[in-house]
């Protein structure tokens, strides 16, 4: 077991998959000679060379389409889009080509491509570099969306995504690349579907994913210590498909749900989880589910305004205390 950073876990997964299969390549802006903006491809250029570790022009739709086209004939590309904000430019190829080609070819063709991209709000990057776009990707039929909350998941999800024959979008987070965590030394593949109970509790369920799993865990500790409330925390590492059975199982046990997301509320993970709860286990509820979400504004630059936009553990605690009638 090694205690390594999130970026190191991603780098290790690249390294192993590229060593395992000569048709695995990686491509993106500054990923080769420069080693990647977040170091996720550090050292790979020297090890595997420029044909397999490809510095692309700043042409997101173009190089994403190139990766998708290469995947049609057996190449397994891992495409890094430097910021999820730029993925909008590649949306045509992701949405219209990768996600739909299996269906519209009647199963003849598939696009086994991995697209990794960090989203989330970092530090004062402004409206065009702070977006959360998971809600957009998770609505696309034919595209899998996973999002790692730990180095272990970051490693195992990428490994499985490379081997999976579907296009997989991996939503990472700019603030998490230096987070440390234990990753087993032995190779493993993390499931691309499902959810994980990361803290067991009886009083309510906090649903989180990516960075909001950590806010939820911090909130659960505070709730336990200060309010005597035992929260269960469920990590929704797969955003598409969402784990209907896992969501229902936890809510059927705790009878209360709070969905914690860094994204804006409309048409988001929270609204989808609430819909699933309605459809699967409405009569198990003791209280109306609640969302803790970002303010629905273009991300402001000013530090104080930025902080006010994004929720955190305190907001989760407040929402739970109110829900439990202990405010």
């Amino acid at each position, binding site marked *: 077991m090694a205690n390594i950073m999130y970026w190191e876990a991603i780098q290790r997964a690249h390294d192993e998959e590229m060593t395992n299969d000569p*048709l695995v*390549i990686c491509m993106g802006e500054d990923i080769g000679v420069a080693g990647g903006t977040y170091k996720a491809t550090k050292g790979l250029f020297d090890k595997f060379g420029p*044909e*397999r570790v*490809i510095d*692309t*022009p700043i*042409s997101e*739709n*173009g*190089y*994403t*389409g*190139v*990766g*998708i*086209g*290469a*995947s*049609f*004939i*057996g*190449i397994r590309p891992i495409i890094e889009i430097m910021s999820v904000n730029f993925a909008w430019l590649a949306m*045509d*190829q992701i949405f*219209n*080509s990768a996600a739909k*080609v*299996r*269906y*519209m*070819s*009647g*199963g*003849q*063709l*598939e696009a086994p491509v991995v697209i990794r991209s960090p989203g989330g709000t970092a530090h004062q990057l402004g409206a065009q570099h702070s977006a959360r776009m998971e809600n957009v990707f998770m609505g696309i*039929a*034919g595209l*899998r969306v996973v999002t790692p909350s730990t180095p272990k998941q970051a490693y195992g999800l990428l490994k*499985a*995504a490379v*081997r*999976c*024959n*579907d296009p997989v979008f991996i939503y990472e987070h700019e603030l998490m690349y230096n987070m440390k965590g234990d990753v087993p030394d032995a190779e*493993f*593949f*993390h*499931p*691309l*579907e499902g959810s994980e109970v990361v803290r067991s509790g009886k009083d309510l369920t906090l649903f989180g994913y990516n960075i909001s799993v950590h806010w939820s865990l911090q909130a659960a500790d505070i709730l336990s210590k200060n309010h005597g409330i035992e929260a269960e925390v469920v990590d929704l590492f797969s955003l598409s498909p969402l784990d209907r059975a896992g969501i229902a199982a936890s809510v059927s046990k705790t009878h209360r749900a709070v969905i914690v997301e860094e994204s804006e509320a409309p048409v988001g993970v929270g609204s989808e989880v609430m819909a699933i709860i309605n459809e699967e286990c409405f009569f198990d509820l003791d209280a109306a589910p609640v969302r803790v979400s970002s303010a629905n504004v273009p991300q402001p630059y000013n530090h104080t305004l930025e902080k006010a936009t994004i929720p955190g553990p305190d907001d989760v605690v407040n929402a739970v205390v109110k829900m439990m009638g202990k405010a």
Partner: protein
Amino acid sequence: MNAADKKRLLHEMLYARRFEERCYEAYVERKIGGFLHLYPGQEACCHGVLEAARAGEDHVITGYRDHVHAIKCGADPKEVMAELYGKETGSSKGRGGSMHIFDVKHHFYGGYALVGGPFPLAAGLAKGIKMKGGDEIAICFLGDAANNQGTFHEALNISALWELPVLFVCENNLYGIGTRIDRSTAVTDQYKRVCGYDIPAVQADGQDIEVVFKAAQKAIKHVRSGKGPYFLELMTYRYRGHSMSDSNAYRSKDEEADWSKRDPILILKNRLIKAGDLTEAAYKKLDKKIIDEIENEVIKFAEESPEPVVEELEKYVLAENDPYVHGGPN
């Protein structure tokens, strides 16, 4: 190109013409739904280029005017027609339709309906070929109007930079949907727009299949020898509207009459007759044979084929039983 080759190509182009005309009828009869983009007038482009290529081996991709390209690559016309009818026996099992014909076993990669979408996909096919070490090439057929998309420039830049084995064929039919090229495009000669990427670019007559064939031979030799991409602009004309929902009111009758004199089938037919390799009677007999074959085999197959079953609506969205979805084969 010898007389036998020319006669075979005349047969193929006439077949393509009659196939598309029969699609038109089936559309009017409401047997075919959705959008339907027909190819008459442009036959020499597809047939000339793919005759010079290794059809069925080289990796071909195109836009939504795709039936004839698929057939020339080796797709069974019955399956193409069944696809237009939305049948389970269609090339895409009725899930694709006219704009999404695929025949991957013959290396025909589709059929895409976003104008300019295939440019980067073609470059990607070429990247894959290069990595795997084969000597096939990628061939991307698109119209002139696709060159006003960003993907055109992005893919040209990447293809030149990485020296990818891809031939871009621009079938310049002078109209982007219903807008004439000089009203949409600052530089109407498309080959001139490629010079900024240092890719060899040539303009040729797209109505005379022998001219197309020779230009394509030169282009393909360049690409296959590892010298990187090539751009071939073929000047052509489509007789029908952009799609069946097009009133075709934006063109003059004089213009249409002028182009009909340069019909690709007429040009080749007259040349064969003049050389003593074909008679008018033999041509008429061939035409009748083709029309009967399309009716008795192709249309019959499409008509009699079963519909897809609703129980399989969600099939093909994702891979079936992929072990890595659940944590790998262990």
